[in-house]
């Protein structure tokens, strides 16, 4: 059992949350130590389990605890036991995003140059329609913007994610890129039914949506004063009209992203681009609903009541 020595230290058994087994035992750890410190100590004893891989719970089937919590707060100093879950090999968020976004950038352009291996040798000499040129430009712009945002704008709360996500996400992004790009760049591409009016309207919607999305990202970045863990409700600011969408939805960045892809689909009149827009919209709606719920839970009555999660007035 646990024995308290004069320095508030105790013996801690780190047990597997699933199945039986001891991961390791720490002979003497202070009850005031935090989970973060525990992680460091366990990593020293078991080098393969670097801190980002470790997840702890006070009960075998409980929720995982935060790094900032002290062992005494969780009563672990009384029981002498804590439960461990291996999150598997981890990879940094920035690495993930780079792989996810660099892929589409490269793959789309691979089709754009009309390689004979895909389209046959006669393809590269056939004319390319304006819509296909603009498609390549927009696609490239979108993913270049994302890469730059990952480097310069976004601030991530978790340092890592499981490596399986990398495989899953890349399959999605790279796969859909090929699926869209193949048809827009095809030698038998048919331009939009309403001609240049449709192309330029789609382009305008795309560009405005990209601008809107960037505006929201910048606002969110500036929302938290650096060095604090303060959480605040995002509101429209006076300088950027795109931020007015916050009056209607919790996640206007997602709303704008849907706009981008609908604009792209209109501009290229390509079914697979539209499918990509729908798939993205579906996933982002799920994320937005979660985020919206979290905001309402955290801020309760202070949170603006007329806001929906992603589509104004609807959902």
């Amino acid at each position: 059992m646990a024995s308290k020595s004069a320095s508030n230290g105790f013996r801690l058994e780190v047990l597997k949350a699933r199945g039986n087994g001891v991961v390791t035992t720490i002979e003497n750890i202070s009850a005031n130590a935090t989970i973060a410190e525990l992680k460091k100590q366990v990593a020293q004893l078991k080098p393969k389990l670097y801190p980002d891989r470790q997840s702890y719970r006070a009960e075998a089937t409980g929720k995982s605890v935060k790094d900032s919590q002290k062992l005494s707060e969780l009563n672990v100093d009384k029981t002498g036991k804590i439960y461990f879950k291996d999150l598997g090999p981890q990879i940094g968020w920035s690495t993930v995003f780079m792989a996810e976004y660099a892929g589409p950038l490269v793959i789309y352009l691979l089709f754009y140059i009309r390689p004979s291996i895909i389209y046959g040798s006669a393809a590269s000499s056939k004319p390319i329609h304006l819509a296909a040129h603009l498609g390549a430009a927009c696609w490239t712009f979108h993913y270049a913007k994302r890469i730059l945002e990952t480097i310069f704008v976004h601030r991530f709360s978790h340092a890592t994610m499981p490596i399986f996500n990398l495989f899953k996400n890349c399959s999605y992004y790279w796969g859909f890129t090929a699926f869209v790009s193949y048809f827009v760049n095809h030698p038998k591409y048919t331009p939009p039914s309403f001609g240049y009016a449709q192309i330029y309207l789609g382009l305008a919607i795309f560009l405005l949506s990209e601008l809107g999305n960037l505006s929201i990202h910048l606002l969110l970045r500036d929302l938290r004063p650096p060095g604090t863990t303060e959480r605040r409700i995002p509101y429209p600011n006076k300088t950027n009209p795109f931020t007015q969408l916050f009056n209607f939805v919790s996640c206007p960045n997602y709303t704008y992203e849907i706009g981008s892809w609908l604009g792209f689909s209109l501009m290229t009149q390509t079914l697979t681009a539209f499918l990509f827009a729908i798939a993205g919209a579906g996933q982002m709606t799920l994320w937005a609903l979660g985020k919206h719920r979290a905001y309402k839970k955290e801020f309760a009555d202070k949170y603006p009541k007329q806001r929906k999660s992603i589509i104004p007035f609807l959902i």
Partner: protein
Amino acid sequence: MDSRKSSSTPKQSSSPSGLATTYLLIYNGVLTIGWALILFETFKRVLSYKSVQDLGECYGLWNSIEIPLKICQTAAFLEVFHAMFGLVRSNPMIVLIQIISRVFLVWGVANYIPHAQHTTGIFLAVTAWSITEIIRYAYYALNLLQISPQWLTWCRYTFFIVLYPMGVTGELLTIVKAMRTIYPELVRNRYSILLPNKMNFGLDYFYFLVVVVLAYLYFPTMYKHMFTQRAKTLKTSSAKKVQ
């Protein structure tokens, strides 16, 4: 084929309303009879064959079961809604995925490419499906009336050992027959979506079927999963019997 075994005997029966129960009873009852009919017609036809050659081609089999098969298999989509609205304790996504694979075989392979109807694969697949479904729907129906016998549970969690591989074999044979039929370019174009068109979408149905075949790589994993479920369920049931 069928791993919709997530709900066996609920520990705390959150029984659906009287109306829901009646509806489910009718649904499950009708489908039990429907699949029994399909199984009966299938064997009636197959037993009329005079040679191994006939069995290889299975002429007339599809025609004799086509209508009840289409009705029963397509009606199964309702089960996605049953799961979504909590009438049945199953994961709607899993239900959907299983139904899609069977419905695709009926509408997207056999119905779409008529030559694919002439293969033993149809016989194997439909036999496996119908026996599985008769047991499954009867099980659900009797469960609603709380008179489901132990041996039926045993059947449900045991027959799959033979039926699941048999069904998959039948499905693959049918798909391969379809692929061989549409391989030549002239035939292929009839079944494919060709470029150019206004939506800028093309689909080579032969390669589409290649992708479908690749999806069957999931079979060993699903098969193993069903064994795990069997171990969990049958152990629990026999433990209950001791009381």
